[in-house]
């Protein structure tokens, strides 16, 4: 047998063995290797290598790039380098002090490559000087040029502030602000164009924003350095594309992407892209690869701005669409035209500003009808991922039934083109065969993923079907066999196949999202799935917490695990901490975990959903509201974001907004659970509070408010009887004890629980219960604490009958005034962020 034949045989045997479980393997190996022990050894060693290989070679090779040395402390010519303030594709930027004139300057040190062509360098200097000498208020002033160890540098005025890129990292800009920035950039470019200077590289990195909103355009002429002199005769040499390897083609005009001669209209295009991104929070053309991006620039119409950012005035949408005409003949003929349009728009925005009266409290309109008459919400496929069914009972893999489905749903929920129902909703519909029409109707979905699991030795066999609902047509069905320690492949492949088969219009961002939140190792993924399995079970979440801790230890780069761990720590703080120090420590860990998740993926849906309750516990309800508004304006069909707003708005005293958010969440997902019950209670709508669900520590409260005390005692006692969590049980006995006149026991429980309760809403309830019991001093102390911790419903405090004994106190009046001030502030920010528009309140 030749070496090649031997290898073929070994491969064949290994291949067969991979299909079998450990127990069947040894028999198979003995049979197939026959009397050739050497072949058997070889096969066994390959099988064992396969076991340990993990993700070996799975990530394509990366190319190392050089790391620049930090020049801080050095003196170059008359400039003393104070610190590095930025580094990018073209070089690094330092803050330096000019010794001659004793002023701060920015020193930009360019890559050595850029100096290789002396002629080109001269022309860059000339162009940069020409732009600077325009003395335009929105063009960065250049002071000097020089060279350090063969690297060219530019010295310019130092602008304190951030680049537009840095500003965009925290999300879209309000429309008025975006237009103001665009207008300043347009003015700068208009002045340059009048002198025949084209910028060619307008992008967020090249616009500096001072804290007062003043904008400056940087880097005139720099593309001259990076691009070669002349295009080919046919004018279509991709080498004229500036900054391709160095940066991004996202802001390039179609003619630039084609390597054609450029005129001022190319800058108009780039400014259009910039304006779009400022308003939408994302660029109009962005592909997974540069080729995709360029393909989109040249041939794909961007999504209308109004669809990305519902607050866009129609006039702005027209201006942006005009600047983004593929054919430059269709764009505004000159920057002056664009400036005129933007100026008219600014006037219109100024005129509109005061004309937005607060909505009357009873009037909640359907958001879709009032805020975006022009742009119907894009249709999105609504999917539910059913828990997998085990074909035979199997303790090894039964944790996968729920958790794998949950993980797939979590991953797919980051797709813009898809609404994925929560795993909790899915777990409500059990039964085999599933009743498809019932699910489609009840959960309002268009597609259902179902599947079965079967373990065969060390292999896991997955049968999955995607069904269209309600008709039940099989969109596809697939069988996969994967090693039991490589379950991540199931998520990957099913995720991609679902996206493919539903022909979802996946954006490049979506493709990235599908890939991004993947664990680095099968072990981390298994820990994650095991954690998920216990995640929603009140009895089990400390188990979940420990599994997630293990998971992030195994793979610190796995964002969804951090987010889930954050929730577990929050719950630990609230329910499992015996001392106030423990509470603080666990809240701190919760915060760090979420930070970590957001650092890894600022868009992670599950992190945005789970973070809200922690923010309100930490007294940051206002931040939660603003974050959710910003997020929901980009993902208007995500019911969980609106459910979060129900909660966060209530803490800020925005009760109408809270109810409107609930209406919106239910509109998107008829089964979603929100905390609207307490909101209705605060509004004095007690029947609706009962209907909306009033669970938690003070079960029975709406019934008491309605004077139905016997019923209140009954529901509270019934709840306390089944709740296993001791903290919750203690709280739930408070109201019955109070009604039964057992004040002493009541006070004892409150005294014990109050100090370590981190949730300002709970603290308010504790305060009013103290007041009702006649304990004025602790009542005042707790009410002050509730306000200072961020529960701002001053109107509710003012009309709460239980707080009657406190009203004479100056401390009460002060606390109310503080709450009112903070609520007004929150309401203003909410309005400015577009929250009222989003919820149809304006």
């Amino acid at each position, binding site marked *: 047998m030749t070496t090649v034949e031997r290898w073929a045989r070994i491969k064949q045997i290994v291949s067969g063995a991979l299909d079998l479980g450990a127990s069947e393997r040894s028999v198979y190996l003995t049979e197939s290797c026959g009397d050739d022990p050497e072949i058997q050894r070889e096969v066994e*060693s390959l099988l064992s290598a396969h076991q340990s290989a993990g993700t070996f070679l799975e990530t394509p*090779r990366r190319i190392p790039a050089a790391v*620049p040395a930090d020049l801080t402390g050095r003196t170059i010519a008359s400039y003393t380098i104070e610190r590095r303030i930025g580094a990018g594709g073209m070089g690094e930027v330092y803050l330096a002090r000019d010794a001659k004139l004793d002023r701060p300057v920015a020193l930009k040190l360019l890559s050595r490559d850029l100096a290789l062509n002396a002629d080109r360098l001269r022309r860059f200097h000339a162009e940069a000087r020409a732009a600077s000498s325009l003395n335009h208020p929105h063009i960065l002033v250049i002071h000097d040029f020089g060279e350090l160890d063969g690297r060219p540098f530019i010295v310019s005025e130092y602008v304190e502030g951030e680049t537009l890129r840095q500003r965009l990292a925290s999300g879209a800009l309000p429309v008025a602000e975006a237009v103001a920035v665009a207008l300043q950039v347009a003015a700068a470019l208009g002045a340059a164009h009048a002198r025949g200077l084209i910028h060619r590289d307008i992008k967020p990195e090249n616009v500096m924003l001072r804290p007062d909103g003043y904008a400056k355009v940087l880097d005139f002429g720099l593309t001259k350095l990076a691009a070669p002199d002349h295009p080919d005769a046919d004018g279509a040499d991709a080498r004229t594309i500036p900054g391709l390897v160095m940066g991004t083609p996202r802001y390039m005009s179609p003619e630039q992407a084609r390597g054609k001669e450029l005129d001022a209209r190319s800058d108009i295009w780039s400014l259009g892209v910039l304006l779009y991104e400022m308003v939408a929070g994302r660029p109009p053309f962005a592909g997974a690869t540069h080729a995709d991006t360029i393909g989109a620039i040249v041939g794909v119409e961007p999504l209308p701005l109004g669809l990305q950012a519902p607050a866009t005035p129609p006039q702005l949408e027209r201006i942006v669409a005009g600047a983004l005409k593929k054919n430059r003949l269709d764009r505004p003929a000159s920057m002056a035209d664009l400036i005129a349009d933007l100026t008219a728009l600014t006037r219109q925005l100024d005129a509109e500003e005061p004309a937005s009266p607060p909505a009357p409290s009873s009037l909640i309109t359907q958001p879709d009808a009032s805020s975006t008459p022009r742009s119907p919400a894009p249709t999105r496929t609504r999917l539910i991922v059913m828990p997998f069914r085990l074909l035979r009972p199997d303790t090894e893999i039964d944790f996968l039934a729920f958790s794998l489905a949950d993980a797939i749903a979590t991953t797919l929920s980051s797709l813009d083109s898809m609404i994925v129902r929560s795993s909790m909703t899915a777990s409500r519909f059990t039964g085999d065969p599933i009743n498809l029409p019932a699910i489609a109707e009840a959960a309002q979905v268009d597609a259902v993923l179902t599947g079965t699991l079967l373990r065969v030795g060390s292999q896991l066999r997955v049968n999955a079907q995607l069904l269209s609902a309600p008709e039940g047509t099989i969109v596809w069905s697939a069988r996969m066999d994967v090693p039991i320690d490589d379950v991540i492949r199931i998520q990957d492949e099913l995720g991609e196949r679902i996206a493919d088969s539903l022909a979802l219009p996946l954006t490049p961002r979506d493709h990235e999202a599908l890939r991004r939140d993947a664990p680095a190792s099968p072990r981390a993924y298994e820990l994650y799935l095991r954690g998920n399995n216990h995640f929603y079970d009140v009895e089990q979440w400390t188990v979940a917490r420990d599994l997630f801790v293990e998971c992030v230890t195994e793979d610190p780069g796995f964002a969804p695990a951090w987010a889930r761990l954050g929730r577990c720590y929050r719950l630990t703080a609230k329910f499992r901490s015996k001392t106030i120090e423990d509470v603080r420590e666990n809240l701190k860990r919760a915060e760090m975990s979420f930070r970590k998740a957001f650092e890894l993926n600022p868009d992670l849906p599950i992190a945005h959903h789970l973070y809200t309750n922690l923010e309100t516990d930490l007294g940051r309800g206002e931040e939660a509201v603003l974050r959710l508004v910003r997020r929901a304006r980009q993902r208007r069909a995500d019911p969980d974001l609106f459910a979060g707003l129900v909660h966060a708005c209530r803490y800020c005293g925005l009760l109408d907004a809270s109810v409107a958010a609930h209406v919106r969440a239910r509109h998107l997902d008829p089964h979603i659970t929100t905390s609207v019950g307490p909101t209705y209670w605060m509004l004095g709508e007690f029947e609706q509070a009962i209907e909306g669900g009033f669970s938690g520590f003070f079960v029975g409260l709406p019934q008491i408010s309605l004077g139905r005390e016997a019923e209140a005692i009954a529901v509270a006692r019934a709840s306390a009887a089944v709740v296993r969590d001791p903290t919750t049980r203690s709280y739930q006995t408070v109201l019955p004890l109070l009604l039964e006149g057992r004040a002493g026991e009541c006070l004892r429980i409150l005294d014990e629980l109050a100090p370590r309760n981190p949730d300002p809403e709970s603290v308010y309830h504790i305060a009013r219960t103290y007041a009702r019991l006649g304990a004025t001093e602790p009542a005042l102390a707790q009410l002050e604490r509730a306000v200072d911790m961020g529960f701002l419903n001053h109107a509710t405090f003012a009309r709460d009958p239980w707080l009657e004994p406190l009203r004479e106190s100056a401390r009460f009046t002060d606390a109310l005034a503080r709450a009112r001030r903070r609520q007004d502030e929150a309401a203003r920010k909410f309005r400015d962020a577009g929250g009222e528009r989003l919820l149809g309140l304006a």
Partner: protein
Amino acid sequence: MTDETPVPPPRQQISKLLEAWAGQDPAAREALVPIVYDELHRLAHHYMRTERAGHTLQTTALVNEAYLRLVDVSRMEWRDRAHFFAIAATMMRRILVDHARAHARDKRGGGVVMTSISDDVVAPAPDVDVIALDDALERLAQVDPRQARLVELRYFAGLTIDETAEALGISSGTLKREWVIAKAWLYRELHGR
């Protein structure tokens, strides 16, 4: 971007060569190889020389870049892209291995100031010793050239399973199996028996 680089032939011509090669014309491949190598080499070295903070670039991105520069994208099919990547993979391997060898020499060489390449820059995945991998791939190619090729395409050009299958002209199913075995073989070679 230096000026000493020869100007590549117009993109239409390269696109034609790629089409011809996809149509089984071996001469077309011969003609393509030096063009693609020059471009990749230029891009990779530009990248590896350019100082930037904490970035590494995926091989896939670089090959894509070369593709974009060389080929008239509007005329090409997805399949042609796989073929282009197939050519590029071998060269990418050569460039990276050469770079690693030079780097290793510099590290041993004493007195050479290594300001431009830093060991701080590591890939997020555990780094594979690229020189050892190259040697192992040589050995693998002796018994199973297709497997060696497959690893090149997946690891050095970042092709997906489907693209790799297309470039090698085999089914995705077969390819997945071969990939698993090749990985196991190489893992054993690199991590001892």
